[in-house]
C-alpha cells in the first residue's frame, strides 16, 4: 500500500488553491476541493512534526548483531563495527 508522499500532497494542495482562485466551479465541487485542501494541509504539517528527534550510531553488540545506540559526535568513538572484533560501550 503506497503511502502518500509529502511532495505529492504539497503539489495537490497548490493545485487546489489555484483551481479555487480561478473560479467558475460549482459550489459543491469547490466545497469538496476545500475539504481536500484542508486535509492535505493538515497532512503536510503533520509530516513535518511527525519525526522523532534521534541521533544514533550502529554498533555491534556482544552477540555480533548491530544495534543503534545514542550518538554524540564530539566523542571519539574510533571503532567501526565491521573492523576488529572488540566492541566498546561508549556513551
Amino acid at each position, binding site marked *: 500500500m503506497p503511502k502518500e*508522499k509529502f511532495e505529492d500532497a504539497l503539489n495537490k494542495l*497548490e493545485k487546489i488553491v489555484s483551481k479555487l482562485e480561478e473560479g467558475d466551479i460549482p*459550489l459543491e465541487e469547490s466545497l469538496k476541493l476545500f475539504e481536500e485542501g484542508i486535509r492535505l494541509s493538515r497532512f503536510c504539517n503533520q509530516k513535518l512534526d511527525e519525526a*522523532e528527534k534521534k541521533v544514533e550510531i550502529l554498533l555491534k553488540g556482544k552477540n555480533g548483531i548491530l544495534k543503534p545506540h545514542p550518538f554524540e559526535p564530539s566523542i571519539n568513538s*574510533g571503532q567501526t563495527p565491521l573492523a576488529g572484533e572488540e566492541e566498546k560501550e561508549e556513551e
Partner: protein
Amino acid sequence: MQLPLRYILTVSELTQEIKDILEDKFTEVWVDGEISNLRIPPSGHIYFTLKDDFSQIRAVLFKMQARILRFLPEDGLHIICRGRVSLYEKRGDYQLILESIEPKGIGALQLALLQLKERLEKEGLFDPAQKKSIPMVPQKIGIVTSPTGAAIQDMLHILERRFENLHILLFPVRVQGEGASSEIAEAIKYFNKFTEVDVIIVGRGGGSLEDLWAFNEEVVARAIYHSKIPIISAIGHETDYTIADFVADLRAPTPSAAAELVVRDKREMKNILHYLGGRLENEMFQILQGYRTHLSHLVKIFKEPGKKIEEYFLRVDDLTNQLRLLTSWTLKRRGDKCLHLSESLLLRNPMQRVKTLRFFVLEAKKHLGQNIKYSIEIQRQRIGGLLGKLDSLSPLSILQRGYSITRKLPSLQILRDAAHVKEGDKVEVKLYQGTLFCGVEKTEKS
C-alpha cells in the same frame, strides 16, 4: 676475454656466454616503451612486446607481479617498466622479465580510475534516467561515514539547525585504507535490508586521490547502484569527483552541502504551508460570500413578491415618463410643423371641393334638363320642318307629281343626258307607281 684462434664453440656454449654478458649488464633496468601484441593466457602471466619507433623487445610480467596491478595493460599504452634482461636459450631470444610497470604520464591509480569509469558508464551505472528523486521531507536519514572527523560533526550541526526533529542513524565505517570500500558497500546494503531510512548520505572529508580511493572502487559503485533507497554522495571537496559521485542519485560537493540538500529548512516549509492554507481559506470564504449575497438577494424577492412588483411598476412608469419627456420635445417641434401642415391640408379639403363640384353638377343637371327640354322642342320643330322639306324633296313626291326616274340597263346608271344612250339600248323607267322596261328608238339633244 679473447677467444683463441680456431676455438670452436657449441651453440649452447655461445648462447651461455651471451646470456652471461646480457644478464650481468642488465640486472636492473628501467625502460620506457609502448605495449603491443599484448597476450594474457589463462596462466595469468602477461606477455607483450615493448617497442619504440625503431626497436622492440619481448617482455613478460609474471602473475605474482601482475596481480597487484591497479590498472589494465592495453595495446598502445605507454609504460615505464622496471625489470631485468634474460635470455631464453631454448628459443635463442632475449626478453625483459618485469618487476613492475607503470603508465607513463599518468598515475597507475588515475589510469585505473579512468578504465573503471569507462567500463561502469558503458554498463549504465551512471544513467541519469535511473536516478531516484530525493524525498522532500525525509524523516529518517542514514549516514555512512567515519564516526570521528569533521564530516559527521558538520552534518549533524546543519541538520539540527534546519530541521530539529529528524531521526538520524549513523553506520560508522573506515573511509580509507584496506577494506574501507567493502565496509562502505556493506553499510549501504545494511540500510537497504534492515532499516526504513528515507535517504542515505555516503561521504567523508577532503583528501588525496589515494585517500578517497575507496569511493572509486567497483564494490562501492555497485552497492550504490543497487540501493533501493536514494543516495546522496558527499565526498571530499568541491573539485573531487569519485566514481561514487557519478553513480549516486545526487552529488553534494561536500558533506556540509549534503546536509543542506537532504532536508529543507523546516520553518520555510511551515511558512509555505501556512501561506497556502491562508489562500485556501480566503478563496473559500470569497466563494461562499458570493453565494450568500446572491441567496439573500433571491430570498428578499421571494419573501415580498408584491414589493417587487410595485418596484417594477414604478420603474415602468418612470421609464415611460422619461420616454415621454424625451419624445414630447421632439413632438413639439414636429407638432408645430404638423399643425401648419394640417391647416393647409384642411384648406385643401377635397370634401369641400367635392361639395362644390356636386353643386355644380346638380345645377348643371338642372340646366341640362331644361336645356334638353328646350332643345328637344326646337329640334322637333326643326325636324318637322326638315321632314316637310324632305318630303317635298323626296323622289317619291316628285314621282307623284308625274316625274319619272330613268336608268340605263344593265348598269342602272341614272340618265340625265340623252347623249348617254343610243338607239337600241334598254332602259328602266320608274314611275310613281310601277316600272317600265323600254328600248330607245331615237335620241334628241335638247
